[in-house]
């Protein structure tokens, strides 16, 4: 028992690495603050383009969305980060993460927003347009607010997935929480930093999981 404790929650090692891990957590937060708004905005753009109802455009959008939903995000990230330097384009890790996440998350957020926009009754469009609002004004002031409310649980649950996905940045050596934990583990020959990082993720993301569960069960109950 003591041995396990010594290897997994060693107080001495905790006191040595916690500050370093907190810094990694800060980087994870910054990364999330970069990729989540980027994903939301681009997803909304995909959904808005979809609701223009141009047949050829919708065909392209389906191909785009399905393509990037079929592609594992890590493959995308490594392709950008390790592939492009071969043609003389050096991509900094953070830019590779931004591009990879943009392509991946815009597909997922796009599908969610599309479902949201489609859930707003047609009459809302017609009423708004007949009061003299332009297409864009209708979209921004009438449709998107209602659409967002209708798909809030899905948006939240996808955002949680995106935040969890920032661990991929560790693979291209961005010093976020998981990367910091791996480095600390390699230096201390002890599992404590990994366990500590897992506890940090749990402490921060557990409340979000609970909230999503409650929203989802509410949504089922309403039906």
């Amino acid at each position: 028992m003591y041995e396990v404790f010594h290897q997994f929650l060693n107080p001495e090692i905790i006191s040595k690495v916690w500050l370093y891990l907190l810094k990694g957590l800060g980087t994870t937060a910054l990364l999330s603050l970069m990729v989540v708004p980027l994903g939301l905005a681009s997803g909304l753009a995909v959904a808005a383009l979809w609701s223009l109802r141009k047949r050829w455009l919708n065909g392209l959008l389906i191909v785009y969305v399905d393509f990037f939903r079929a592609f594992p995000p890590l493959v995308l990230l490594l392709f950008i980060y390790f592939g492009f330097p071969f043609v003389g384009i050096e991509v900094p890790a953070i830019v590779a993460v931004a591009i990879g996440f943009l392509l991946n998350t815009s597909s997922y957020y796009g599908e969610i927003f599309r479902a949201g926009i489609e859930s707003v009754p047609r009459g809302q469009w017609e009423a708004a347009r007949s009061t003299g609002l332009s297409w864009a004004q209708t979209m921004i002031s009438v449709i998107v607010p209602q659409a967002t409310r209708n798909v809030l649980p899905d948006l939240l649950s996808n955002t949680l997935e995106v935040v969890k996905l920032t661990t991929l940045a560790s693979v291209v050596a961005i010093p976020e929480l998981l990367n910091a934990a791996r480095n600390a583990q390699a230096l201390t020959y002890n599992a404590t930093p990994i366990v500590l990082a897992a506890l940090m993720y749990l402490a921060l993301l557990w409340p979000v999981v609970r909230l999503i569960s409650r929203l989802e069960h509410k949504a089922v109950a309403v039906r």
Partner: protein
Amino acid sequence: MELDRLLFTFFNPEIAREYWPDIAKGFVVTLQLGLATIAAGLALGLGLAMVRSLQLRVVNWAIVFFADALRALPPLMVIIILFFAFPYAGLPMSAFTATWLSLSLVLAAFSEEIFWAGIVSIPKGQYEAARSTGMSAWQTLVNVILPQAVRITIPPLTNRTIAITKGTALGSVVALAEILGSAHSASSLAGNPTPLTLGAVAYLLLFIPFVLFGRWVETRFAWKR
């Protein structure tokens, strides 16, 4: 940039010919890993949801705790724990086992929640009617509740299963020679990204049918309101 050079770099036929067997081997590993994950994850998830419907308080707490924790933890974090931390407790495991076990547990957590939401959504009258015909609680669950519940869980379940199965690529982080792992090491060896392109194509071959199936299932089994 000249298109020729781009093609020569990313789709070099000579390098493709040399390295495609590596990618093909990786493809088989990914396929095995994916199928094993889907089978174990969904079976465990369904089992947990069935046990949860028996409403045993302490057991339910344990199930909710498990499902919450594995939905909160990033899958790559779980793989790292199993592969790098468990050996310290005298439990070393292969990269394949660590990736398979991690993804299966994550899929079990998500699918348990989805199955459970499906079970809860069946009107109580169904349960009462079945019990009053003399069926046991277990018979009611298996013959009356689940057939109805599983049907409505199919769309969310399909999407979640695709998302988690794509996580097989995470195995490359613990040096598993699945598609991404083999493609990455082949492209370092060759000094050319063509193997990565091959790997990307392999993933598309594998997952595009899944994604299209998910789209079809979404319209086929949509909630009738």
